[in-house]
């Protein structure tokens, strides 16, 4: 092992994963902004906002535009997974430390983490994906299914009603809106905290934007994975140059803008929900 340079960095996310997250967050913000305007259309800011962006027709266009982009990204992700599992036999995507599929260690980690929160035990050693990261991932997956299906049902309502009862369209609007409120509340508070705002990461963890993390971050956040890779010698293969300054700055600006936008939307949602 050669002597490491001043600050060794290691790859955590592929370019595809970084783009997926960027498309996900951009379209989610667009969907939330336009969707919340409709969901809380009785709130006084809603009509003002709708008027500013060009009326209901514009709101509808942006909502559907973002929905199609997000669907495309989602299908590309699922297609990529199927291809890698079925054709390239990357079975570690289905189980093991590199998989998003929950395993026993996640439940143990959750229990131990709660004990750690209460000063009843040591901090658990997380592997590549901590249990809350898996929750974030599957929450989006579930939300995509529920919100996406109900959304397309309403978009193509007459077609949908050829197959299913029309009264399901009532259910579609209800769960589309409620699940969206859950997604907004979850992403803009819990995901923001878990991923970015907690003292360990404050103000922001730019790994998802730059794709790399420093050795110190790696050891601290994913000690189990770091130890395993260091032991097997695979760690060196993940070694990268530190992210250039422009990329780090871009990530900070882009990420801060997203977080602030999310906070504004969260505040508007909470106020409107309270007033209902």
């Amino acid at each position, binding site marked *: 092992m050669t002597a490491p340079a001043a600050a060794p960095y290691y790859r955590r996310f592929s370019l595809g994963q970084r783009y997926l997250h960027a498309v996900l967050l951009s379209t989610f913000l667009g969907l939330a902004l336009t969707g919340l305007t*409709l969901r809380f259309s009785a709130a006084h800011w809603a009509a003002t906002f709708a008027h500013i962006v060009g009326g209901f027709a514009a709101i509808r266009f942006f909502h559907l535009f973002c929905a199609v982009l997000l669907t495309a990204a989602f299908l590309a992700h699922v297609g990529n997974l199927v291809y890698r599992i079925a054709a390239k036999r990357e079975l570690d995507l289905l189980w093991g430390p590199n998989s998003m599929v929950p395993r026993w260690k996640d439940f143990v980690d959750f229990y131990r983490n709660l004990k750690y929160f209460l000063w009843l035990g040591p901090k658990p050693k997380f592997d590549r994906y901590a249990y809350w990261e898996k929750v974030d991932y599957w929450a989006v997956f579930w939300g995509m299914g529920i919100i996406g299906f109900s959304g397309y049902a309403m978009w193509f309502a007459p077609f949908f009603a050829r197959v299913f009862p*029309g009264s399901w369209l*009532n259910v579609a609007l209800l769960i589309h809106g409620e699940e969206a409120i859950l997604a907004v509340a979850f992403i803009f508070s819990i995901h923001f905290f878990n991923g970015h705002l907690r003292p360990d990461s404050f103000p922001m963890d730019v790994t998802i934007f730059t794709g790399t993390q420093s050795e110190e971050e790696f050891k601290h956040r994913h000690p189990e994975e770091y130890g395993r890779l260091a032991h097997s010698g695979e760690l060196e293969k993940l070694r990268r140059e530190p992210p250039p300054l422009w990329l780090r700055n871009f990530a900070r600006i882009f990420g801060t803008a997203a977080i602030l936008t999310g906070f504004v939307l969260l505040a508007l949602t909470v106020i409107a929900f309270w007033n209902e």
Partner: protein
Amino acid sequence: MRQLVLLSLACLVRLCAAELDCVSCHDEKAGPFQASVHATLKCTGCHSDITAFPHPENSGKVNCGTCHADNAADVAASVHAKAGVPQACIGCHGEPHGILTSKDAASSTYATNLPRTCGTCHSKSFPDQRGKQIYAQYLDSIHGMAVTKQGLLVAANCSSCHGTHKILASRDPQSRTNHANIPSTCGACHQGPLTAYRSGIHGQKVAAGNTRAPVCSDCHTAHQIARVETAEWQMKTTATCGRCHVQQLRTYHDTFHAQVSALGYVDTAHCWDCHGFHDILPASNPKSTVARANLITTCGKCHSGANRGFVTYEPHADRHNAQAYPLLHFASVFMNLLLSGVLGLFVLHTILWLIRSTAEHRAARAERINP
């Protein structure tokens, strides 16, 4: 015979002399009087108690009813007489010596002048019982604009709806503005809507004596009637229907139709887009726009692909009603539990985490400073 002619001549000369005598003192009255509708009458025709000169300083009260007996009787029965309005005739017809026929454009009772005449009393200084500024409201209404701005003689002025001499309080069953009589009052001009209204459920109920079923003014108002083509008016209609149909308005607010409407856009379903307006019928009536058999046509006005399945959508579904909408109710309860469960668990998780890691950071910093 000769005596008779002489006597008649003498009387004529005496009368002429009397008229000349009035004007010789009251010459300021001569001008308007000559132009008035009463110009052919003598002064003593109205001032009948003046028979000789010199006459008393104050002559007796003029009784218009001597000639206008019917009108006087009507006024005596009217709300104006009951309210003790002084000088009932000249209050509306103006300066007594210059009274003009209501066909005369200079008359205070001419169609385009009447609102101002009535407004002299029925304005800010004398709002109606409910405190509304009815004169100002009328002037801004479609009728008031047509009459006062456009000079449209056929548009409704005060008397078109309230009558003239026999104006009665609306609670009087005889009144033209009594609840039961309003349809025929408005229908005197708006025959088409009246016919449609009478065929609809509202008109049927009013005809059957229901005093709570709406008449024209319940939806259109009395003095603030606006153009129905304007988006501003159309946006208000759901709330208008909802004054009676409270439950239906509440469930409408749960729909996408209402969400779009609340943003200020009129191109979405409001009550009347589906139910019609003057000839509204209950869904149980096969002629109703919302009868099962007509839904594809009604929904199809906006939803071009509407089909049999599509029209089983419930535009007034109530998620709180488990009996009528079990699936929707279940979905609502499930989503509430999901939201509160997931958010509750993770908010707690986040708070505990924040406390613990803040403490750890403080400890680590303390160790760095003072190892």
